[in-house]
């Protein structure tokens, strides 16, 4: 039994069957990659996991509880954090403030009217934020206006914002999309380091095969909204169905 169990999920947009009978099981403390050609339904599947879309049929269980019908903030409070394809951060705020918000969310829940205390007096949260920033080598940028940073730094900040919440499951939506090779390798190293340091399950959607085969413990190949194979990386590479659907045309 995995930490995330997707059972018979279907999702239609008008005449288009975006997801058809998707079954997926992500085991605890593994890196699970979901790959597939454009239009395979990867993003739709991800959106069904975080509450942005509701599947027409099927079930999505996380940690023994259904996520269906819950709003994104409730699902986050259950322990799922998401990194977006283009980094979603609080651009008007400083790096440090970007880190404090997820910490407050984890400690105080979805809403609390703490209007009189000062942010500066939250010493232990500030310490946690600084430790996390140090882990991703961004401590020197903590007073920076986050919108003015490079895309790579924004990505690292977003990752740090997710990790500082100690999620049980981290969802990554093409974390290296549009990155230069050097940045991609940095991201791989960062993710490996994260994996070594803590007990965390990572589900990753990725185009870049280099990233997938460097990180993944298991891979699900999606094509036209249906999983073709789910297996270990070494078995995926040579799999004829995969060659046909995906690698054949991409490489």
């Amino acid at each position, binding site marked *: 039994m995995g930490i995330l169990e997707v059972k018979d999920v279907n999702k239609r947009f008008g005449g288009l069957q975006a997801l058809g009978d998707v079954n997926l099981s992500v085991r605890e403390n593994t890196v699970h990659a979901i790959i597939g050609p454009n239009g395979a339904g990867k993003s739709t599947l991800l959106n069904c996991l*975080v509450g942005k879309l509701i599947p027409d049929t099927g079930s999505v269980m996380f940690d023994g509880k259904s996520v269906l019908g819950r*709003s*994104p*903030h409730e699902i*986050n*409070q259950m322990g799922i*954090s*998401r990194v*977006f394809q283009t980094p*979603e*951060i*609080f*651009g*008007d*705020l*400083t790096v440090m*403030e970007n880190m*404090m*918000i*997820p910490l*407050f*969310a*984890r400690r*105080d*829940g*979805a*809403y*609390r*009217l*703490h*209007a*009189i*205390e*000062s*942010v*500066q007096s*939250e010493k232990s949260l500030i310490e946690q934020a600084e430790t996390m920033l140090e882990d991703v080598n961004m401590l020197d940028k*903590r*007073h*920076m*206006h986050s919108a003015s940073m490079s895309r790579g730094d924004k990505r690292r900040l977003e990752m740090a*914002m997710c990790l500082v*919440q100690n999620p049980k499951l981290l969802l990554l939506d093409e974390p290296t999309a549009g990155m230069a090779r050097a940045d991609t390798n940095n991201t791989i190293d960062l993710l490996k380091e994260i994996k070594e340091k803590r007990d965390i399950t990572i589900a990753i959607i990725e185009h870049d095969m280099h990233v997938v085969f460097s990180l993944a413990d298991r891979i699900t190949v999606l094509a036209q909204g249906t999983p073709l194979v789910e297996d270990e990386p070494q078995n995926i590479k040579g799999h004829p169905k995969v060659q046909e659907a995906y690698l054949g045309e991409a490489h």
Partner: protein
Amino acid sequence: MFGLDKKDAKLLLIVAALVLFAPFLLNPFPTDSAMAQFNAGYPDLMQRFVIFGIFAIGFNILFGLTGYLSFGHAAFLGVGSYSAVWMFKLLSMNVVPAIILSVIVSGLFAVVIGYVSLRRSGIYFSILTLAFAQMSFALAYSVLTPITGGETGLQLALDDPRILGVAQTEGGNIPVPGIFGLEMRSTAELAIGPWEFVFNVGYYFSGILMLAAFYLAIRIFRSPFGMMLRAVKSNQQRMSYTGLNPKPYTLAAFVISGMYAGLAGGLMAAMDPLAGAERMFWTASGEVVLMTILGGVGTLIGPVLGAGAIKYMENIISKINSEILHGWFAFMPDGLEDLIVALIYPFIGKGWHLTLGIIFMLVVIFLPGGLVEGGQKIARLFGRKKAADDETPGKSTEPAE
């Protein structure tokens, strides 16, 4: 000090000093001099400075932090005024219960309007708030006449019950608002040489409440709640995927700013115990938007400056007439004098809106951060040398106030 850091405490003390010494600062010209008409240190105007200061501070908590632009905040001002006048009619002429009721009633009103309006964002939110305010105006003007006095407005009468006070004074007059016996209108005058300074109870009462409102606003700006409100403005998608529900945060900001407006409305009634529907008209809502933008959106002191600037122009520039202009330029040859007066005339008197419009355009184009940004630029011009010596990294990245 007071749970504020050094910079904020300094700002609070400066504002406190300005409020305390305003009767001197606003009357810099001797009473008989030609410049005396630029004196703003008379009770009625000083009261308006601080009352609209409160209104704008509150509005800025919503607009400055969350970015939600309400075009209907005058409705809360009006509701506050009506509540206060009703308290004067039914309970007593003490302003304390009147103002408490103003804040509570406008807060409840804000919960309802906010709950509905905040289902949309951006321009649709603005339109919804505008619609609600105009609806309130129309209701107050017609259907709700028994409660609001309709066209004539809500006024005190000799046969009001005033169960804790007196229905009428010994002389048979309507009593005036006061705080535990001290009348709001009572005024002390101080003449120093040709200068005359006026100290008014109502002004200082409103001034103290403005300081309290300002202090609370600083605390909100620096709190986790204030940070969440800025997060609402910055990226609501990231906010929900970080486990936070943006809706209650925005509604709380809406209600708090509505209560500030109610406080301002209650104080207006406390200074002059009548309330009319025109206080809720959409131009009144627009005025507070102008004040906030003119002063500096999202800054602490900006709205207060903007409120002061607009109320000063409304009351001082509008008083200048063509005779005064002719007096100023009398030293010129007649033809030239008439020409100059004719050129300036559209900008004064009833034309003060034109002056305001031009200043507003100049500020928005050249100083998007409002008067506060202007002040910072001037300060930097003078302090450049000094700043180069003690500039520390990270200092300039603090949110500008």
